[in-house]
Structure formats: C-alpha cells, structure tokens
C-alpha cells in the first residue's frame, strides 16, 4: 500500500478539529469544581446532547470499519445489528431500566449493583469493567496508530502518543462533560464526513437498482470475489434482503445463522446485555439533567441509530458491488504483505530457478497461483524492478482485507479537502473511543474501587483529585494496551473473546435484579460466575467451520461445529445467558434475602412507585416515543424484507 500525501487543506481541517476539541476542554475547566462535576457531569446536560453522545460513544471507529466490513461480507443482513440488535434494547433501557439507574442516585452501573445486591457483585462487575475499558481504549488507539502508519506513513509510536496526548488534554480539563461534548462534535463529523463518500459511491455504481443488480451477481458466485469458498452459491437476494435469506436457514445466507439465533442470540442476549448494562453508554444517559431527560436519551439516540446502516453498512455493499463490475476497475483491498515477508518473497522471486510454491509460502497469504506464475515468467525473461515486483506480489494476494474497505472507498472518491474531512471523521471517532472509555474507567475506579475499598471517607476534593490522577493513569494504561495489541495479531481476538465471555451472561443478572425482588446477592454473584464459566466452556468445546482448534475455540473437544464465527458467538451468548438466569434464580430461592423491602425500594420494579408521565407532552412520554420508534423499526424491516 503506498502512502497518501496530504495537502495543506487536509492538514488545516485536522488541525482545526484538534484545536476545537482541546478548546472545549479548556473552556469547560472552570465549571469543574466537585468530583461529581468532573466524573458525572453534575447531571446537568441537555437531552439532545446526551442522546447524540450516547450513540456516538457506541459508534467508535472500530464500529465504522467493522460495519463496512460486515456489509461487504454479509450484505444488508448486517443491518440487524441496528434494527434487531440495538433499537429494541434502547427502548427497553429508556422505558424500564433508566428509572432505576437514574432514580437510585447511583453514580455508576456497579454502584447500582451494590445497592441492589452486595459488595461482591459490585466488585466483580467494576473490576471486569475497568479492565475491559482499558483494553477497548487501547484497541482503538492501536487501530488509529496503525491506520496513520499505513495510510500516511507516520511512525506508529509517534501517532499513538500524539493522539493519546490530545485526548488526555481535553479529558483532563473537562472530564466527562468534555468527552460528551466532543462525542457530539464527532457525531456530526462522521455523518458529514462520510455522507459525500456514500453519495459518490452510489452515483458511481449507478444508483440503488444498479447496486441491487450487481449484488445479485455477487450472490450467484461469491467465490469470484474470494468472499466464500469455491462452489458456494446463494439465492439472488442473499446480499440485498434482510430476512428472506435468514428464513432459508444457515446454509442459505452468507452470515451462516438462522432467524432464531439472530433474534435470541443477537437481538435479545447480546444486544440487551450491551445497551442496558454497559456503563460506557448508560453513563451518558445518567449525565442528563432530570429523569425525563435521562429516559429520553436512549430514545433520541435510537433515531440516528436506525438510519446509520445507510452510512456505515452501505459502503461495504457498494464495495462488493463495484468489485463485481469489471468496468469500475475496483478491487476489494487485500491485507498488506508484511515487510519481512515481502523481502523473503522478493528473494524467492529472484532465485534461479524461481518456484511459485516458494513465493506463495514466503508471502504466507492465499495467492492467485496464475498471477504468481505469470510474474515469475516475466521476471525470469527480463529482471523487473523491486518496486514493480512489490506491487505485483501485493496484487496477487487473493484474500480480502475487509477492514480496509471503508478506507479504500475514501481513497477512491475523495479529492484533497474532502479527504481531510473524512480522515478527520475517522480520527475523531478513534479518539473519542479512547475518551469515552477513559471517562467511564475513571468514574468506576474512583467511586467503585478507590472510594469503596481503598480510601473511604476522604474529602470530595480528594476524590476530584483522584479522578484527574486516574485519568492520566488510564491513558498511560491504554497506551500500554495498544502496544500489547500491536505485538500479536492474536491479541485483539483474545481481548474481544474475553469481552464476550464477561458480557454474555450479564443481562440475566440485571433482568432478575430489577424485576424480581426475591433475587439475592449470593444468587447474582454465583450465577454471574457460572454464566461466565459457561461461555468459556462453550467456546472450548465448539468451533466454526474452516477454523483450527485454538483461539477460535474447540481446544478441549469439538461437540458442535457452526457455519460461521458469528453463529458460534450467538449460540455462546444464548447458552451463557440461560445458565446465568437459571443459576441465579435457583440459588436465590435457596438462599436468604438479606435486603429489606425498604432497601429495595427504587431498585426493583415491583417495589417502586410508577413514574407519572402524564404531565409530559404525549409524544415525549417514554412509552409513547418508544412505541413510535419500534413501529418505525418494523417498517424498515418490512421495506428491506
């Protein structure tokens, strides 16, 4: 991959954005008086701001990159991550769960768990959450530094420290408010930075109908683009219908799942587990200025969320559509050949006599044998330049780098200027990925670990100081995590795997805790541990097709083989959730409830007086607003049926 040379206009846009986020941090500094101002925004932010921040905290760069990748791999079915996997859970959070989070006066999700259950559950949740936020932040920064290195040729370490430094500057000054404000800025940046790219892509391919036709060709023989193994054929609508391919069963859609795994695994367990319990997003709603605003936060966020597939999934679909049309001279990006391997490949090419096998072995990726053979013939007849050889070797790689799809479109369509805008949008989302995680981390550390166990009964000034101090530590730990993730390619897979293990059963604990007064602390604690254990065990004994036992699972036994990673993942989550639910319920019935009815008031549904929404404008009542959103979501599903 050769580097893009930025023009002054591109630098100017990046510099302007940086100046504004740092400026916002400094402007907010004078409002940061107590620890609560710094760590929880003093519960004072307008709803539209918390709503956009709520969605923006989730729309990290990895999501942008990953959704375009999935759009290319699986087509419009990817939209279920939004329509099935987000909207219902966001409505549920607003209508049923937010009253407890906000009403309990808890400052964090772990603190709610302490009020509802006991210290053990809180400790378990806050420690695992703190570790996860650091790694998530590190992964985000690693991806950013790698992108700057590959795209612009900037030094990895330099990019990592500079970008982390900028995040540190604004988060240290303005705390959570700074993070939330810049998330709103980032939201508009992403929408306005990517919309023209999508527009140009659609125009290039010739509109929606032309895209659909191209995708029908893709579905007939996905092997032509190395999307699926040779001999795979799907019905014409596999990339363009959201539900019909799912109803045909796992072997009839590129995602390899059936509708039940989709609805229960993704739509219920994973989605509710993420949106309703993850403090990173819930924290945004908890910063709202009153209960009504807190409950409307996820609902406001749901509106853009519903429409995002057009911005983040469509580019992936456009990419495969363009790739299948020969006239467009577009190729799906291939993973860059590592420098050391490229050197070995050149040596193999120049050896006398050169063999295709040796070259392919040196590169270590799947190669187009015909292209390699042609290259060898040409090079033997007439020695080619090293630079030419490099380009040709890279060109002969027959694997797809799906994560590079979005960037390849930006590079294809953006002239200088617009390129700077799109690049800034990407930078912004990587950096706010770090800011969001660090601000969630510093709150949980200060209130749920430091104040709870290490140094209780100190002055608020002390905690405010600790909040700032731990922000610096959090950023340094994130940088360490980024280096860790950059050292092995497997590191990211391992980290994400562990996230999955911890998150899968979590929603069962919250569901029982909020809606069943009899649920006990012991039940919740042991249930959660058993649930996490189940996900590990499930992973150890199942595998997805085409993978070797190891990081992808199946290292103890192979009791079940799933068609794709995604299917394995959904069933893992569904199983862990069910075990956690049953174990928590069973143990609760066998143990004594240590909390009194009085203590549980405001924390459990049946013991809390109903909120009166009557004085609010009819359409702004959470239940009404939520219902309208769900109807809109159903309509979208029908349109793209």
């Amino acid at each position, binding site marked *: 991959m050769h580097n893009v040379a930025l023009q002054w206009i591109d630098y100017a846009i990046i510099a302007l954005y940086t100046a504004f986020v740092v400026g916002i941090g400094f402007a907010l500094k004078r409002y940061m008086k107590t620890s609560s101002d710094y760590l929880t925004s003093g519960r004072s932010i307008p709803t539209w701001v918390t709503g956009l921040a709520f969605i923006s905290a989730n729309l990290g760069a990895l999501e942008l990159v990953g959704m375009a990748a999935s759009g290319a791999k699986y087509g419009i079915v990817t939209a279920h991550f939004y329509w099935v996997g987000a909207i219902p859970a966001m409505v549920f959070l607003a209508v049923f769960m937010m009253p407890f989070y906000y009403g309990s006066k808890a400052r964090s999700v772990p603190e709610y768990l302490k009020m509802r259950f006991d210290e053990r559950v809180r400790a378990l949740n806050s420690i695992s959450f703190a570790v996860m936020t650091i790694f998530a932040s590190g992964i985000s920064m690693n991806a950013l530094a790698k992108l700057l290195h590959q795209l612009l040729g900037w030094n990895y370490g330099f990019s990592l420290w500079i970008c982390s430094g900028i995040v540190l500057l604004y988060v240290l000054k303005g705390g959570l*408010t700074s993070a939330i404000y810049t998330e709103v800025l980032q939201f508009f940046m992403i929408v306005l930075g990517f919309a023209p790219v999508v527009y140009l892509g659609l125009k290039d391919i010739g509109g929606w109908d032309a895209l659909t036709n191209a995708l029908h060709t893709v579905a007939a023989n996905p092997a032509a683009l190395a999307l699926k193994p040779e001999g795979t054929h799907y019905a014409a609508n596999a990339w363009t219908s959201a539900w019909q391919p799912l109803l045909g069963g796992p072997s009839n859609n590129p995602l390899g799942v059936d509708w039940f795994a989709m609805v229960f695994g993704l739509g219920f367990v994973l989605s509710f587990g993420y949106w309703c319990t993850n403090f990173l997003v819930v924290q945004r709603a908890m910063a709202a200025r009153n209960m009504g605003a807190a409950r409307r936060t996820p609902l406001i966020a749901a509106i853009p969320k519903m429409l995002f597939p057009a911005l983040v999934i469509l580019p992936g679909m456009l990419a495969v559509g363009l790739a299948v049309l020969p006239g467009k001279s577009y190729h799906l990006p291939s993973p860059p050949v590592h420098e050391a391997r490229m050197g070995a490949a050149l040596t193999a090419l120049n050896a006398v006599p050169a063999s295709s096998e040796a070259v392919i072995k040196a590169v270590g990726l799947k190669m187009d044998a015909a292209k390699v053979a042609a290259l060898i013939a040409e090079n033997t007849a007439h020695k080619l330049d090293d630079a030419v050889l490099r380009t040709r070797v890279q060109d002969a790689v027959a694997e797809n780098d799906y994560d590079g799809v979005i960037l390849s479109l930006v590079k294809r369509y953006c002239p200088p200027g617009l390129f700077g805008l799109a690049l800034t949008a990407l930078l912004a989302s990587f950096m706010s990925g770090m800011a969001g995680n660090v601000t969630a981390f510093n709150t949980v550390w200060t209130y749920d670990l430091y104040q709870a166990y290490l140094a209780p009964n100190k002055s608020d000034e002390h905690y405010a100081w600790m909040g700032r101090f731990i922000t610096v530590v959090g950023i340094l730990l994130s940088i360490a995590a980024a280096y860790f993730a950059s050292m092995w390619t497997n590191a990211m897979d391992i980290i994400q795997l562990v996230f999955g293990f911890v998150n899968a059963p979590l929603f069962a604990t919250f569901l029982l805790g909020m809606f069943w007064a009899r649920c006990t602390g012991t039940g919740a604690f042991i249930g959660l541990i058993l649930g996490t254990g189940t996900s590990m065990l499930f992973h150890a004994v199942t595998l997805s097709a085409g993978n070797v036992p190891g990081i992808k699972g199946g290292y103890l036994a192979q009791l079940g083989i799933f068609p794709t990673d995604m299917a394995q993942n959904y069933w893992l989550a569904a199983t862990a959730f069910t075990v956690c639910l049953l174990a928590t319920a069973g143990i609760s019935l066998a143990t004594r409830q240590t909390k009194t009815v009085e203590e549980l008031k405001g924390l459990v549904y049946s013991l809390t007086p109903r909120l009166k929404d009557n004085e609010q404008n009819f359409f702004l009542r959470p239940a009404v607003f939520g219902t309208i959103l769900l109807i809109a979501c159903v309509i979208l599903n029908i349109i793209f049926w």
Partner: protein
Amino acid sequence: MGLDIRWPIGLMFSIVGLLLAGYGLFTGGEIYKCSLGININLIWGGVLLVFGAIMLTLAKIGSGKAPEGKE
C-alpha cells in the same frame, strides 16, 4: 454545564465549510476526476457552511432563553 455546545459546533463547521468551499473555488480539473468530475469540495463546503450557520443561529436563539431547570 455553562457552555452551549452549539457555539463550537457551529463555529467549527462554518470555518471548515468556508475553507473547503474556498479551496473548491480555486481548484478544478484533474483533482476532481476521482469524485466523478464533481467539484465536491465546493458543494460540500457549502453544505457544511449552511449546517454551521444553522447551529450558530440555534445557539443565538437559545442564549436568549433561560435553561430548563431540574424536575
């Protein structure tokens, strides 16, 4: 919080819009081959400028009103 976020958003997008549109005004030809021959900088710079101006107007209107209090 005392700072109305619409000010910085409005200001930033207005400046970026002006820059982009200005750049588009003085460039042409070859560099727009990739964007299908459309001077996308000029058009999109204009869009950003309009967006920025709307944000600034909303902030101006909002600054006249007292912020809504806690329930």
